[in-house]
């Protein structure tokens, strides 16, 4: 069961991710990205991260991506033009990406043993520490500081957006 869900949503995630890269129109990209995010939310659930899965859907796939779509609409961005080129990206890009995938993939695949007594496996329900309660407790005790500090971050974001995007006063 775990395997099935994993494979399914992993496939969707990757497919959507590839779609993000391959789609020409930004809106399609955005929608594909939402797809990836949604499937990741499922995987989070499988990993026992209920709260995060929820946030992923609401905040990420919901709020942030809506923002993206909004901007795309606002700018009326159509299919990307193919003007200009990056010489280096063409020549070195693909080999570098392949190498990156190779080394990261290799490292990650071998990170934990897959078989044997020490095998590290994910079985739905193994870990249930990712509920809202646990998160909330941690946030207000051990991780109080970052939690508070993120408020500054958001304040800056707002401030920045205002500075950059507001209309001229005069």
């Amino acid at each position: 069961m775990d395997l099935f869900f994993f494979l399914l949503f992993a496939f969707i995630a990757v497919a959507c991710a590839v779609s993000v890269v391959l789609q020409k129109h930004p809106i399609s990209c955005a929608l594909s990205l939402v797809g990836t995010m949604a499937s990741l939310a499922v995987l989070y659930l499988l990993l026992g991260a209920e709260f995060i899965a929820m946030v992923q859907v609401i905040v990420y796939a919901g709020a942030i991506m809506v923002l993206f779509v909004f901007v795309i609409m606002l700018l009326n961005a159509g299919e990307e033009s193919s003007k200009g080129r990056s010489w280096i990206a063409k020549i070195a890009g693909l080999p570098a990406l392949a190498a990156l995938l190779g080394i990261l993939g290799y490292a990650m695949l071998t990170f934990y043993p897959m078989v044997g007594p020490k095998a590290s496996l994910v079985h739905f329900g193994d870990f249930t520490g990712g509920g809202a309660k646990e998160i909330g407790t941690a946030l207000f005790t051990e991780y109080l500081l970052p939690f508070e500090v993120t408020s500054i971050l958001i304040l800056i974001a707002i401030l920045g957006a205002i500075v950059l995007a507001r209309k001229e006063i005069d």
Partner: protein
Amino acid sequence: MLANGISSSFVPSNLEMLRFAPELILSVAGTLLMVLDPFFGEGKKSPKIFGHISIVAFLLAIFGAVEANTVAGPAFSNLLIVDGFATYFRVLVLVIGVFAVLSSYLYLDREAADTCEYHALLLFSVAGQCLMVSSNDLIMIFIGLEISSIASYVLAGYLRNDRRNNESALKYFLLGSFATGFLLYGVSIVYGVTGTTKLDEIRTFLAAPGVPTGYVALAAALMIVGLGFKVSGAPFQVWAPDVYQGAPAPVSAFMATAPKAAAFAIFLRIFVTDFDKIGSSWEPLIWISALLSMTIGNFAALTQTNIKRMLAYSSIAHAGYLLVALAARSEIGTAAAMFYLAAYALMNIGAFAVVIHICGKGEKNVLISDLAGLGQKQPLTAGLLTVFVLSLIGVPLTGGFFGKFYIFRSALESHLVWLAILGLLNSAVAAYYYLRLLVVMYMHEPGEATESLEPLSPGLGLALALPAVGTFVLGVAPGAVLALATAGAALTK
């Protein structure tokens, strides 16, 4: 959690708040500015009051940082650590903040830009840097870094109708986020290996035998990408020239110094302590990166005509020198880097301040040739710039020299003989383009830009004079700062 009797309770103790004081002061001040904006923002286009408040806030924060150091220790569940190292860097970035404000008055006035948001962003950015340098946790570091960076992104594009500003901000933002992705991936792998993101716990974990060092090395590599980007070390330096050139001059000055200092602080704190165990794996890379940074920075700067861009390349080269200190992987190296950062910050701010002084509205005079005859028209300004240039070259009795000396000493102590030699030779190459500034200033006849130059404004004057004094102090009597750096470096382990 129970260290120093601080519980992980909901309400932080006063002691913890004190250790968090600088960030707190800056955040409050930043918020205060925004609150005050409606009262002062109307009527006058760019009131100076916000700058004044910022300076007061910075000074208070410096006071706070120093006070916090008297009760050094961890705070907030050990996420934060106040030690000599943190305090050193906190004070450093705060001082940079002061100078950034000082050098901004004239610029903002000239560009008729909003001051409130500018100064607020500056305050927040510095707050983020303070947070970074005093963090004891990778995730805190990440958040601090983002606070600092996001504020910087906005600042880089602050004059939103200026095409150069836009481009600068976009590049900085996109590439910065991109690099942050790598950094974050590295953090996650560290977390995966050790099960924690707290630096001291990581240290403890890695000290134990049987650690899968390969994965730690991988994480280190990914973090080098992210941090290397922030410090503009090769081959992750590519963004720096464009961004520094495009950003408003005072912001460039700020970006070339404070975020860099903070990022180096992180670099040092993480690599020299936690990752020292696997040092042999990353040291050669830092070695190469250092050499590349110096070489690319210095050689590319040779042909630049734009001062800001030249200083950007030069800052890449200086990052290279700093990476040498990092490659030394020693307490002395750390102290050297700390000292050098201070010296570097002062001389760079000073140099940029002169750029701000001469650039004129819309930054139309930013070519090296625009300095022509400054030595005759404004000998004092020219003299001060000379001090900075000499320091950048590394002439004795300036902070730049002593810093360089200290760095290469650490390299030699760590048997990085060839790196030291190549680095020193590089500094001779660097002399060539720095000398051009002096040549143009003193040995050319005054040009249009200098003929119509207004006298030095008080804010800029301070932003020039104080760093100049500082540069000399660091060169002639570096003892005090050096002692602080050495003490700070000792505490990181």
